[in-house]
Every structure is written in structure tokens, then in C-alpha cells.
């Protein structure tokens, strides 16, 4: 079996297939899966304080995709530290915490609170949240705001800091470079795309929150493109996310320049998806006569 290890600089992973935030809970509810094949787990998004989440209906299926508007339901950082970090500290697989806030300060506070807590291997900054101080503009759409929130977290921790990019921007490279400048160790591309589905009987949006984030295979070609653009723009590792259902899908991201991938919606359909993708990548490398994932030729012309 080829060596599927991934070196992300300040974090080494046993495999290139990670569990995406919000699709794996806190890592405690995924049965059947061989955890030795999970490269890392990114926790459900966490805020400082507990949040009830949005009213139902929260999800709607669409062609090859699903919309979700969970509303970052969660117990808040103190409960996370109390209830989950002690478990994580006993696991082999590294767990990163997905950070969310309404101001750069809130992100910084979260990182400070979690830094050094056993079981926390690093942070993934979710910049798809609205910046309440800047009038609800999303952090992820503005290079300055993205850099500010990255820097706020960077200042409070030596652990790996990843920034998860928003897709609905004209040039993802600009945001990517801003995050690198502010000290990010890796970038994750991408989060969900904003979408809407209409209930024809009620003549209103199917989701109570009106809009939701589109995930699943429908977005894969868009996500591959964005991850590729990000990988071309920066020299830190990029982790590809979006619509990966099988090894072939993951390989599209890897060949397009990603160091690793995250699997989200696929876990809903097949709780063993991550292990299946991991194994399939190994088989592809083997068929291709490659001994290591690091040796996979990438398609990554430099800008």
C-alpha cells in the first residue's frame, strides 16, 4: 500500500482524507467507520456561547446536492472543552476546532480559550460568518476582514491555523493571499455556496432560514476550480472540499494542487465514505505505480 501520509508543515496526517466541519459532529457519532483512515477531524463549528441553531426546516435536497441552514447550533466553547476535548485527547486522529464569531475579537478569544486544551490539535477558521461589527458583511468576501480574523487567531496560538475560504468571490486568490499574509498555515477551499429552494405549495423558501449552503457533488466542479485557483495563488497547503463522494472525486482535487481533502456530505450517505475514499486513493496510486501521495504529479501551473 502506498504511503498516504500528508505533511502540512506543522501537522503531519496519516492520510489525506479529513472529516469536514458540520458533517461529523464532534467525532463521537460516526459508527462503522475505520478511524485509522481518517486523516483528521474538523469539529462542528463552535462559537464562544451556546447557540440553539435555526428553526426547522433546516435542509433541502436539490439535484446532486443539499442545502443546509443549521445555524451553527452548538453548546459553546466551555461545554466543548468539558464534554468533548477529553475524549479527543485519547484519540489517535487529530481534531481541529472550527472557529466562528461575529468579530475578529470573538475568533481570537475562542482560540485563546482552546489553545493548550488537551485534545485540540489546531484550528480551522470559518470566515463565512457575517461580521457584525462591519455591518454584516461576510469576513470571507473581504481580504482585509479575512486577514484581520486570521491574525486575531494567529496571535493567540502556536497550533496550526487553517482558514476555510468562502466560494462566492470573484477572485479567491486575493482572499487566499490575504490569509497567508496574516499567518495562516493552510487554506481550506471551499465552504458551501449560498442557495435557495422554493416550496411551490407554500410559495416561500423551503428552508425556514430562507437561504442555505449548497454542498454535495453538484458543487464539485466549482470547488475543484476554486481550490485550484487558491493553490496557484499561495505556497502553503490547500485542502480541497466540495462534493467528494469517492476516490476519483478526491483525486481531482489532489491533482489540481491540493495537499489533502475534506469529505462532508458523503458521510451522510455512507458513514464509511472517508475510509472508502482513503482506500481508493491508495489503489489509484498503486495502479499508477506511485509509492507515495507526495509523488503524485500535480496539475499546477504557477500564475
Amino acid at each position, binding site marked *: 500500500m502506498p504511503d498516504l501520509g500528508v505533511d502540512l508543515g506543522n501537522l503531519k496526517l496519516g492520510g489525506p482524507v479529513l472529516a469536514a466541519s*458540520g*458533517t*461529523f*459532529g464532534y467525532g463521537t*457519532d*460516526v*459508527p*462503522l467507520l475505520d478511524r485509522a483512515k481518517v486523516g483528521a477531524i474538523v469539529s*462542528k463549528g463552535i462559537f464562544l456561547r451556546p447557540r*440553539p*441553531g*435555526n*428553526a*426547522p*426546516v*433546516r*435542509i*433541502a*435536497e436539490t439535484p*446532486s*446536492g*443539499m442545502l*443546509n441552514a*443549521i445555524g451553527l*447550533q452548538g453548546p459553546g466553547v466551555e461545554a466543548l472543552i468539558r464534554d468533548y476535548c477529553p475524549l479527543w485527547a485519547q484519540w489517535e486522529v487529530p481534531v481541529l476546532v472550527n472557529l466562528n464569531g461575529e468579530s475578529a475579537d470573538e475568533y481570537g478569544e475562542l482560540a485563546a480559550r482552546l489553545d493548550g486544551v488537551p485534545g485540540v490539535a489546531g484550528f480551522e477558521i470559518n470566515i463565512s460568518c457575517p461580521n457584525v461589527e462591519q455591518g454584516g458583511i461576510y469576513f470571507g468576501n473581504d481580504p482585509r476582514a479575512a486577514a484581520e480574523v486570521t491574525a486575531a487567531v494567529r496571535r493567540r496560538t502556536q497550533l496550526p491555523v487553517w482558514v476555510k475560504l468562502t466560494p462566492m468571490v470573484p477572485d479567491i486568490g486575493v482572499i487566499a493571499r490575504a490569509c497567508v499574509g496574516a499567518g495562516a498555515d493552510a487554506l481550506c477551499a471551499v465552504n458551501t455556496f449560498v442557495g435557495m429552494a422554493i*416550496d411551490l*405549495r*407554500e410559495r416561500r423558501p423551503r428552508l*425556514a432560514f430562507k437561504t442555505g449552503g449548497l454542498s*454535495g*457533488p453538484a458543487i464539485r466542479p466549482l470547488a475543484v476550480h476554486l481550490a485550484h485557483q487558491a493553490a496557484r495563488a499561495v505556497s502553503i497547503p490547500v485542502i480541497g472540499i466540495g462534493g467528494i463522494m469517492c476516490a476519483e472525486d478526491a483525486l481531482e482535487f489532489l491533482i489540481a494542487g491540493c495537499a489533502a481533502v475534506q469529505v462532508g*456530505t458523503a*458521510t*451522510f*450517505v*455512507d*458513514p*464509511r465514505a472517508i475510509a472508502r475514499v482513503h482506500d481508493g486513493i491508495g489503489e489509484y496510486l498503486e495502479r499508477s505505480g506511485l509509492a507515495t501521495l507526495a509523488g503524485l504529479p500535480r496539475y499546477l501551473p504557477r500564475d
Partner: protein
Amino acid sequence: MHELTAEVVSVRQRGEHGFWVTGFAAAEVAESVRAGQFVNILLRPGPLLRRPFSVYTASAEGVVEVIYKPVGEGTELLASLRIGDRASLLGPLGRPFSFDSAWGSVALVSGGLGVAPMPLAARDAKAAGLRVVWVHGARTSGELQSEWSGDELVEATDDGSAGFHGTAVAAVPSGVGAVLACGPNRMLAAVAERWPEAQVAVETYMGCGTGVCLGCAVPKLDGAYDRACKEGPVYRAAEVDWAALPSQLHYAVA
């Protein structure tokens, strides 16, 4: 919980009203399933997400049946499966009904496709030594079920064309020791008013069925949301904030 590629071993269409029943060879599920639990079925080719179905029957021969009406993409594909075809089943999932022999008797109250968990509920109730009254409601006589189990059957129709003239809830005989209900969320809200301690199986959309997506939020009166697939689908009726639970889901339409 198990995930298995299960072969279709039986397909039958029931009653005028077009309920379908499909049986899968799924011994691991058949052995362990309890009333109120569901299986999450993957149809390929088919829609992205699995579709949850209450387990209708589970036999000693290892056959698990689900009952449904072809109303959309998933159920139409399910109805197109023929004997020998295969589908992936994930289950059993969710928290089942619980039974207490101290009740003496129990009423199983079902509306429309809410019959789905009731044959197993009757089985588990009998195993707990309970007398079982099954009360089933439909809009009209043509939509009534012909399959039932238990000690007594009470039928009700909205239009009075058969049995009790009125809702299933109104038709429940007095004196039963406990009430278990399944049906449109609207009907369950009525159950909650009359029997706050009733156990009800609710329906929500589900993303995963295993507890990781938080898509299946059930609003509770304490202000929290929990997961229909994990803490549910069976709830104490008084716990649920019925006004906040969507009542327009597709299963519930029947």
C-alpha cells in the same frame, strides 16, 4: 447499527389507496430492530440522500419490510425495485418506543402512513404483556388499512364512510393504559393535547440519519432543538413544541 446491501425479496401493493410494501433480506436489522426505529435506504441510481423508512415488519426469516406510497423521487424508485434488486440499508436507527407492563393496555394510534411502525409496536407491546388496541384513522373507507395486529381494531374515517365518524384521536377508547401514536405531525399535536404522556414518532427531513448533520431538528418546549434521528424519532408528546414543528412534510401528506 448495520449497513448492508440488501436484496429485495418481496414487493406487494396494498389496498385501493396504493400503499406499497417492499421486503428486504436484512437479517441483522430484522433481529435487532424495535418498534419506532427506522432504516435509511440508499437508492442508486437515485437522489443524493438516503430516505428514512420506519420498519413495518421484521420476520424471523430475516426479512424487513417498509410501507410507503410513491409520492416522489425516492418512493417511486423504491416502488420500481423488483425481486432480486439490491439497495443499501442503514439501520436500525433512532430511539424506539418503550413499553411498560404496568400499563395493562396500550392504544396504538395511527393516521395514514403512520401505520408504518405499528405492527412492530403491537409485537413489542404483546411481548411486554400488554393488551393492544389499534386505532387507525383515514379520510375515507377506501384509505383504510387491511393489515393490522393486536387485540382490538378501531377504525375511524373523517367522512364517516366506515367505522367511527371522526379522527383516530377522537376514536381512542377510554381506559387505555398508554398511547403510542404515529401519523401526520398535525395529528400528533392533537395527541399531545389529550395525552401529554403519549409517545409519538415524529417526521422530519433527514440529512444523515446518524446524528452528525443536525438537519432533523425537533423543536422542544424547553427551547432546544434535538435530533429526530438520535434522541427521536420517538418523543414524549408534551416535550415537543408542536407549533414550531413543520407539519407539511411529505410522509405526513398521506
